[in-house]
């Protein structure tokens, strides 16, 4: 689960990480008021969306007067910001963070991740701040410091000093760096984060270390341990269909093809998309119905997949282990009868209670396209879509 920059900073501040003075505003007039409250004569206005590269899209601006603060806020709020990490439509900006602008003398990178190879929380630090750390790691791997944290003892001071020394945070800056790293680690561990990134970490006026930009994401399997994190969730940043699917216990990810997919298990769901792609088709989505899916859950899966206007045919591929083919078949029949489904539906069932499931489908008299196995299912889905597109083109309707 991702959160906004202003929320990350609020959370990190409560752990003692120094951040610039600032507040969030959802209108140009409030942005002006906030700037006045903060004081000073130079401010940064930062668009709040869940995507990086905001500076490149014009989502970070400097202002030298309250008038300019309001002007920039007005321009950002209510418009779509396009960055290298968003789609070409961009993301709607609903709020801006107004902060006192800093006199920066040097920038660093500081991050925490869960390293899959070391299987530990790992600190990543670099003297090359303000840049894409993956690009630095690629071009100049020696400039990226990695230190794994032993979960039995946490992050000791010596390890922070070691990292600080290696990126050049020495002298009077070292104790600040140690304090900041330990605060970041405590927050990461307490809240079950998966990723935290301070980029840049900067030296500003009179040798002060400060987190200029910050980003965190959290383990959705652990938010029940810290429900306060859920208050930070911004549904406007998420795909409405994906949010609805989660509510039904379905794992759905929208893609840009036209074959709707309903599958059980993440691996088989990906393999089904791959088989469609292998035969020259294009999947419209990833959808995993999970284990023990009830007929209602299957019917809901149809509802969600069909909300995508690009979907021209639906492929249901179930290999039941913990699932039951008879429940799945009932769900399919329910969906076909109640939802007025006009798209051709290809069904492949296998595993637990296969015979009962197939009988339910056969007895329903509904026009399914039966598939014997994964290959047959993928082939039939692609053929069906091709026929539909061809006839649309002949009628001058489709693309």
């Amino acid at each position, binding site marked *: 689960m991702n959160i906004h920059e202003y929320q990350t900073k609020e959370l990190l501040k409560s752990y003692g990480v120094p951040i610039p003075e600032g507040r969030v505003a959802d209108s140009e007039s409030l942005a002006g008021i906030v700037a006045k409250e903060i004081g000073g004569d130079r401010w940064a206005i930062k668009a709040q969306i869940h995507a990086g590269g905001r500076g490149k899209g014009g989502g970070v601006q400097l202002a030298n007067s309250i008038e300019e603060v309001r002007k920039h806020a007005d321009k950002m709020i209510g418009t779509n910001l396009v960055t290298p990490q968003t789609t070409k439509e961009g993301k709607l900006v609903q709020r801006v963070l107004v902060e006192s602008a800093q006199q920066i003398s040097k920038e660093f990178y500081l991050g925490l991740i*869960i390293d*899959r*190879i070391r*299987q*530990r*929380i790992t600190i990543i630090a670099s003297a090359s701040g303000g840049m894409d750390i*993956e690009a630095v790691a690629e071009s100049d791997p020696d400039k990226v410091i990695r230190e794994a944290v*032993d*979960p*039995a003892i946490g992050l000791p001071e010596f390890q922070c000093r070691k990292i600080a020394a290696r990126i050049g945070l020495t002298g009077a800056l070292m104790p600040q760096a140690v304090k900041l790293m330990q605060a970041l680690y405590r927050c990461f*561990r307490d809240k*079950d984060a*998966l990723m935290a990134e301070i980029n840049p970490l900067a030296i500003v006026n009179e040798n002060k270390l400060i987190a200029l930009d910050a980003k965190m994401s959290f*383990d959705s*399997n*652990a938010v*029940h*341990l810290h429900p306060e994190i859920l208050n930070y969730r911004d549904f406007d940043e998420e795909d409405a269909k994906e949010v609805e699917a989660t509510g039904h216990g379905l*794992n759905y*990810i929208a*893609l840009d093809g036209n074959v709707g997919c309903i*599958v*059980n*298990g*993440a*691996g*088989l*769901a*990906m*393999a*089904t*998309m*791959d*088989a*469609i*792609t*292998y035969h020259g088709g294009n*999947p419209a989505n*990833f959808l*995993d119905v999970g*284990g023990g899916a009830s007929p209602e859950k299957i019917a809901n899966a149809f509802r969600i997949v069909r909300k995508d206007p690009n979907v021209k045919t639906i492929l249901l591929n179930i*290999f*039941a*282990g*913990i699932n039951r083919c008879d429940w799945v078949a009932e769900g399919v029949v329910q969906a076909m009868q109640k939802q007025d489904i006009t798209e051709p539906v290809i069904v492949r069932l*296998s*595993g*637990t209670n296969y015979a009962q499931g197939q009988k339910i489908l056969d007895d329903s008299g509904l026009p399914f396209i039966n598939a014997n*196995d*994964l*290959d047959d299912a*993928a082939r039939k889905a692609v053929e069906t879509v091709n026929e539909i597109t061809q006839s649309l083109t002949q009628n001058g309707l489709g693309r």
Partner: protein
Amino acid sequence: MSILINKDSRVIYQGFTGQHATFHAEEAIKHGTNIVGGVTPGKGGMTHIGLPVFETVSDAVRETGANVSGIFVPPQFAADAILEAIEAGIKTIIVIADGIPVQGMVRVKRYLIGHDAMIYGPNTAGVITPGECKVGIMPANIYKPGRIGVVSRSGTLNYEAVEQMTKLGHGQSTSVGIGGDPINGASFVNVLKAFNEDPDTDAVVLIGEIGGSQEVDAALWAKENMKKPIIGFIAGVSAPAGRRMGHAGAIISAEADTAEAKMNRMEELGVHVVRNPADIGSTVDRVMKSITAVPLT
């Protein structure tokens, strides 16, 4: 023979009296699994499906000599249940629970150091040695005793591959799920090593997916050490970058994480890579025929 579990394994289920554990324990017993009891805190002393229930894993180990545990407790309690199994001296711990907090698993992996135990999972469909022992949620009827080892991250894709090869007459020595989580127990390399040593395994099917580097690490190890052919598939050629595809660990974070990159690298390292997931069975068949066609010298 087989790896990890067999007819002599003494199996307990943690979270034994729960609905899923009960159903799958009964299924496992039908398959011949020697389940010797289970653990549900607060229900020690009861009898459940004819077997003793214990308060703690160490009680169960002392009373039954258990050496394998299937963990069926809800995800929020699962990390603790694994720690308990490790501490009690269980050697083979199979974690079915899905949705364990990642940092919980980081601590479990730390605790594992210095203990002689191996974890399979979390978020695995389990481990099965067909006809002998099943600890998991897989449909047992698609597995047949045979000489192919199977190791996968995904459960349902494991079923798909197994059905394809069983239909063509190739049974399995053991099928191992290592789970779909980013921090897991046994790696592909650990399982390949075991299959390499097993005289009753002739070839191994390795099914991976996008995210992480475990599959390529396994192929690198195999190039130097493996005496048996590997048939490999990586799910997620059609998956977009940066999105978690159902499994917590299935996310493309870098170019090397993509299915395409992994399959190309594995092919270079000598793995028989399958590009269409529907061709796993036929590739096994082809590879097996090519092995048996070579005259013994």
